[in-house]
């Protein structure tokens, strides 16, 4: 790494990096507690598996299928991919919301920002309407 490159990043960083320390600690605490619980139950808990206990848990009913490794309907995938597309929309709205209420923004600038985002949401709203009418959200 050249000194210019890493030096630049170093200089930029030292101030802000400590802000993420709580995050690191939280991750460490989470990993420790989770790991400890798993390890304790493995070492201390009695294990006497039998036929019934090894069945997949299904709220007291007879399990529909043997284990989780069975083929699922493509419908799950369709819903998931539609979810991601509209999830993406909210990602674009988040920075917009963060800047819209910033103090010191001109009223006309605000208007333009509003029009831009209304266009975005409006067009994707029409997209949602299209999905709805095409029965993309129905589980037939």
């Amino acid at each position, binding site marked *: 790494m050249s000194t210019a490159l890493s030096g630049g990043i170093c200089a930029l960083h030292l101030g802000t990096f400590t802000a993420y320390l709580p995050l690191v600690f939280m991750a460490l605490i989470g990993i420790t507690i989770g790991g400890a619980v798993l390890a304790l139950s493995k070492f201390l808990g009695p294990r006497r598996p039998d036929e019934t206990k090894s069945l997949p848990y299904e709220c007291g009913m007879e399990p529909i299928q043997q284990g989780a490794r069975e083929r699922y309907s493509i419908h799950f995938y369709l819903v998931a991919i539609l979810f991601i597309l509209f999830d993406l929309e909210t990602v674009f709205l988040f920075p917009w919301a963060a800047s819209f209420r910033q103090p010191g923004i001109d009223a006309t600038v605000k208007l333009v920002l509003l029009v831009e985002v209304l266009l975005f949401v409006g067009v994707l709203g*029409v997209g949602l309407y*299209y999905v709805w009418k095409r029965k993309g959200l129905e589980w037939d």
Partner: protein
Amino acid sequence: MEALDPIQIASKDFKYLLPVMLPALFGLVALVADLFSKSERSRLPLCMISLSGVCLAGFSAIAFWSGAEFSEHLAGTLSTSAFSTAAAMPVLLATFLISLAAAHHGMPTDPKATGWLPHSLSHGEFYGLLLFATSGMMGLIVANDLVTFFVALEVMSIAVYALTGLDRARSRAAEGAMKYFVLGAFSSGFLLYGMAMIYGAAHSVHFSEIAAANMSAGQSSLALVGAVLFLIGVLFKVGAVPFHAWAPDAYEGATTAVTGFMSVGVKVAAFAGGLRVLVALGAGGALNPAVGWLLWLVAALTVILGNAGALTQRNPRRLLAYSGIAHTGYLVIGLVAVSRVFDTSHSGYVTNVGASAQLVGVGVDAVGGVLFYLLGYAAANLGAIAVLCHLERDGEEVDDISQLAGLAKTQPKSAFAMTVAMVSLAGIPCTAGFIGKLWVFRAGVAAGDVTLVVIALLMSVLSLFYYLRIVVVMWMHEPGRGLDGEEQQVVALDHRRWASGLAVGIATALTLVFGMYPTSGILNLIKAGAGSVF
């Protein structure tokens, strides 16, 4: 970049965005309008929506983009000049003719049948995706920074991937779409990596600033690797060897209309966008002679393998796919010539006082050649595709050139149009294909790549075989007799297919007009475009 006054953008600059956004708007209208159509009888209303979108986009492109001077808008993310209009014309021509040619897709042959073929039901999605892709292509042509370039490229690609797999009645469609998508995503990765490196070397994503950067001094290796990775991404989109593996399967799997749209629209937009980035990189000093030689190798391999692959094809879509690869090769010769301009021994390039790059001499010749070639290729290839769409019956498309046997006797107009298209694709004089080839080859010779041009010439001669074979089959064979003398069903004339007939007529007329009377308007536009890349 200084901060913008949004009001100023809103009032003044957004009109430059119209040719990009109008197709998308009409695509949305087509998508929603299809939800309300009660009967599945006809695609014509949607076709009309599509045509009006294309026409409005074309008018606004001529009105707002055609300035002979290169100018930047919207914080430098868009740039327009005559080059944009000249490159937009073949794209819009493709959308226009494909909209028309596909208007009767799936129409039952029996005049009393009311229903349409089930797999042609997705009318709205077809026209919607067609127009979304057009929007991406237009964006690619005028994009002036790497971010906009990439988003526009993805708009185009995603829409075209979906269009490829549209015809679910054929399992080949799914296969073609899958290959295209996976390899396309892979090439997007290359493109992005290249962009990141170009940004690292030039410290800017704006093309003008990349062109003004001095990358030859310190960051030469970073810029060079970035340029090569970027070019790999672009060469994939145009289907150049060795990045062409997807093309035959995708073209064969897709519906004929989509094949035509892919082969013309994607190629034009990727070449136009790639050319601008190439010039920017060259002006910024990111290219060294090695890039020129890599492109040289790609061009040679592409013309050889494209033409050789086409020789044995009997499926017309697959044949057009390989022929499209070959034409990509001829066009890459133009890119080679452009990259040579930036070698120190050439003089096709000057830097103006205003630090903006300017091509002269060989550079202008190469860009003009590429632009004219794209227009001629668009007209001829769309003509052939429109004839194939015209001959589709009950969703059954022409899958073997034997089915064209004796077409001159049964449908002389279609046979004539197909002949003109084949002759132009082969590059025989009096057609647009000839002038385009002449122009590009001349630029290649002027740039000093005589060997490459000789290879391309030899391969053009070879291409006569497979183009003229179709002509021979149509004119010399008896109707109903295939290539090997086997029985073939004769495609009956269907007078209700006026829209695809119109598309055939327009494409043929344009091929002949561009070839025999390259009207001064078109020539002036292309010459002005070649001089105003930057």
